[in-house]
């Protein structure tokens, strides 16, 4: 029987929304306060949902200790208390939360193996969030 197991994490990081494809004026118009040259930060909420058959012996889709280890290695160790713009994943794309969400989905998908990761939700503030799934 297929069920889903979800876990929430938080990480704090800074970013600046700016692209060399636009002029300074166009960047300011597109990104507003988020274009501040010195950047700014968020406490991101990360929700990871994995799907799969419930193991008959454990009653679990996935052991949370194993999920925590993957998320810690792939996501928290790399992005928590860092500047997203300086990460290799954002050399060539703007660290919007949409793009951050796609980066996290791809990192976790590869680390968890095929078919397990259902979605990643990234909450940038309490009032906005983004979801990326396998589609």
């Amino acid at each position, binding site marked *: *029987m*297929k*069920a*889903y*197991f*979800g*876990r*929430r*994490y938080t990480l704090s990081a800074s970013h600046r929304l700016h692209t060399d494809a636009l002029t300074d004026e166009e960047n300011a118009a597109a990104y507003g306060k988020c274009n501040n040259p010195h950047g700014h930060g968020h406490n991101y909420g990360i929700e990871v*949902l994995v799907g799969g058959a*419930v193991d008959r*012996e*454990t*009653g*679990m*889709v996935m*052991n*949370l*200790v194993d999920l925590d280890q993957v998320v810690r290695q792939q996501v928290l160790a790399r992005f928590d208390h860092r500047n997203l713009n300086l990460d290799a994943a954002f050399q060539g794309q703007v660290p919007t939360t949409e793009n951050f969400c796609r980066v996290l989905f791809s990192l976790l998908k590869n680390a968890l193996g095929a078919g397990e990761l259902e979605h990643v939700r990234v909450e940038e503030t309490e009032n906005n969030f983004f979801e990326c799934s396998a589609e």
Partner: protein
Amino acid sequence: MIFLTRRATFSASHYYWNEAWSAEKNEQVFGRCANLNGHGHNYTLEVTVAGEPDPVTGFVVDLKWLKGVMEREVLSVYDHRHLNLEVEEFKAGGLIPTTENIAIAAWKRLEAKVNEAGSAKLSRVRVYETPEIFAEFRGEA
């Protein structure tokens, strides 16, 4: 199609233990959750139904009615109980009361009652064990 969700909370105790395993293996796999004296959580149950709004009332289902179904079918059985000792599906020889299995068991308790109203179908049951840990079941095989 509109998805409507109602939330409720219940408090219960449980532990994780597989009778087929040694004590060492239970402790290795389940960690602190294998303490046979049990421990407890404030659970949040989220029930989502899917349907079209009624042309007269504008409701997919009456939320008051859904609250009653949740209370009768799930909360009255789980709230302030020891799941392993007092709830049929989790008693010895039954399911381990993991969050996944609680979501599936709650779905089974709710499905017929929610669907018999005719206006909407049960779409999703999500159970939060803590604000950071949850499981959901969508009725998939």
